[in-house]
């Protein structure tokens, strides 16, 4: 079984985000970048599928040289091969998806995994776009996956419940937290990852359809009123919510 996992290199969720002077990018100074948290579930699921069915796991990332660090993490977890689609130019979701789809078409995997969204742009669209570009079915926000005889049954999270989806293979899946418990890379894995080569491919030039006009901090909230420090604050809080805020 050929498995591909598309991964991204993103600011750690604990990072403070500051805006760069250009007003459309973030200031990367002193921001730690990590493997996108949702992609960890995607890598783990591919490794488990390989352990069960045999095959090969290829990790793919689009971006600059820094993304190699994230590709190495996937290799350390157990991916067999890593590919960097090397491109520094600004891309929107469509042009990211196009570059990934162009590469994936060549290797035609049975299963393609993404994290359900990248915690930088938070668009949650690239995985499903790639599926459409390749003419493949897809299931997003997967929390459970079972594969047998060329088809898959997947549970995806929906508002207040779950939806069970059946799909043929090859297919694209996007991973939600809860799909599995990602492994930590072993020392042996980390050492082995250092010597595995990372293939570099230059994708076709981007043709973005979406333009970023501005990036800004959300309006800051001022600290409000401390209503009290003991039980006597309770009736006053309820009164404020009822009469001042009018929310209950």
């Amino acid at each position, binding site marked *: 079984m050929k498995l591909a996992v598309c991964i991204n290199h993103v600011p750690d969720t604990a*990072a403070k985000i500051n805006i760069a002077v250009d007003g459309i990018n973030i200031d990367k100074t002193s921001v730690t970048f990590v493997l996108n948290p949702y992609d960890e579930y995607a890598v783990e699921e591919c490794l488990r599928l390989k352990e069960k069915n045999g095959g090969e796991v290829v990790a793919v990332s689009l971006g600059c040289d820094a993304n190699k660090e994230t590709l190495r993490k996937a290799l350390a977890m157990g991916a067999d091969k890593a590919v960097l689609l090397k491109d520094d130019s600004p891309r929107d979701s469509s042009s990211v998806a196009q570059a990934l789809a162009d590469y994936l078409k060549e290797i035609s995997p049975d299963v393609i995994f993404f994290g359900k969204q990248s915690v930088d742009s938070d668009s949650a669209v690239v995985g499903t776009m790639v599926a459409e570009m390749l003419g493949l079915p897809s299931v997003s926000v997967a929390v459970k996956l079972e594969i047998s005889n060329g088809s898959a049954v997947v549970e995806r999270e929906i508002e207040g419940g779950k939806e069970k989806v059946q799909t043929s293979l090859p297919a694209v899946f996007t991973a939600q937290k809860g799909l599995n418990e990602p492994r930590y890379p072993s020392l042996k894995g980390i050492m082995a990852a250092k010597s595995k080569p990372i293939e570099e491919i230059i994708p076709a030039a981007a043709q973005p359809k979406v333009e970023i006009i501005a990036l800004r901090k959300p309006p800051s909230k001022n600290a409000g009123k401390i209503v009290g*420090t003991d039980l006597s604050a309770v009736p006053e*809080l309820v009164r404020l919510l009822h009469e001042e805020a009018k929310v209950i």
Partner: protein
Amino acid sequence: MKILAVAEQRDNKFKKSAYEVVRTARTIADQTGGEAVVLIIGSQVQSMAGELGGYGAQRILAVQNLKLEKYSSTAYSKVIAEVVKKEQSSVVLLSATSMGKDCAPRVAVKLDAGIGSECIALKVEGENIIATRPVYGGKALTDIKINSAVKVFTIRPNVFTAGTGSGDAGSVEVVDIPLAESDFTSFAVETTQASGKLDVAEADIVVSGGRGLKAAENFKMIEDLASAIGGAVGASRAVVDAGWRPHSEQVGQTGKTVSPTLYVAIAISGAIQHVAGMSSSKYIVAINKDKNAPIFQTADYGIIADAFEIIPALTQEIKKITGK
């Protein structure tokens, strides 16, 4: 602009987000001298679709087919794209729900359109729309412009106003979009929903608990308060990672971003990734015994005290008002 809004239904019921998408389409249509056309997809939806007229739909299209009873990413996206082509719409609006977010990327690719997801504001500017959307889990906002002929937007539930329906029933046109077996390569076979359970992302009021609650069983207190106030239960990442609560309840950067009218944070310190996911709530209440907890920096009302002491009393006091 000619807008096509997709009004989502599940089990032949509209969610509030469906009304929001219709009203938003109408607002843009009015500002641009365009038309708000609403599409509803399902097995038997013609009779229910008329209601959308009361929310501003100028024309209502129903595509119905027994095979469309449950959601299929491949088939629903085909229906939407075909209707957009027929109608020559230039803007497609969907709700940023589990269905809308799954469908919209396919619609965009089929129409060679750029996409803006989870928008929280859409502003008409000349011939175009400037969309605002949160990024980095809500730590920043970005304004974007789509330059393709067709533009696809998903809008975050609970942010745009739906208003109340006027009760005017619009007339419904049934549209036939032929579908083949090959259009259903993935399809839902079953949906399970906890009955009456509100989702944190859709609820008007969210009551969240954090690690300060010490144990999974102490969330009973949070559930009781949520039920008294008519809200959904939320949780911090620490609590979900500890296995006390399901991930579907997690609020924050690797959980859900919420914008309810009232957010109550109980025994939550207010880590940056959590605050990013709830700071756009209209009113925030924090209850924490640590007076230095960062959560107080974003709260409108705070009580510095032990949650175990405060919450049962708060629940009782709220019951007096809500009568629940």
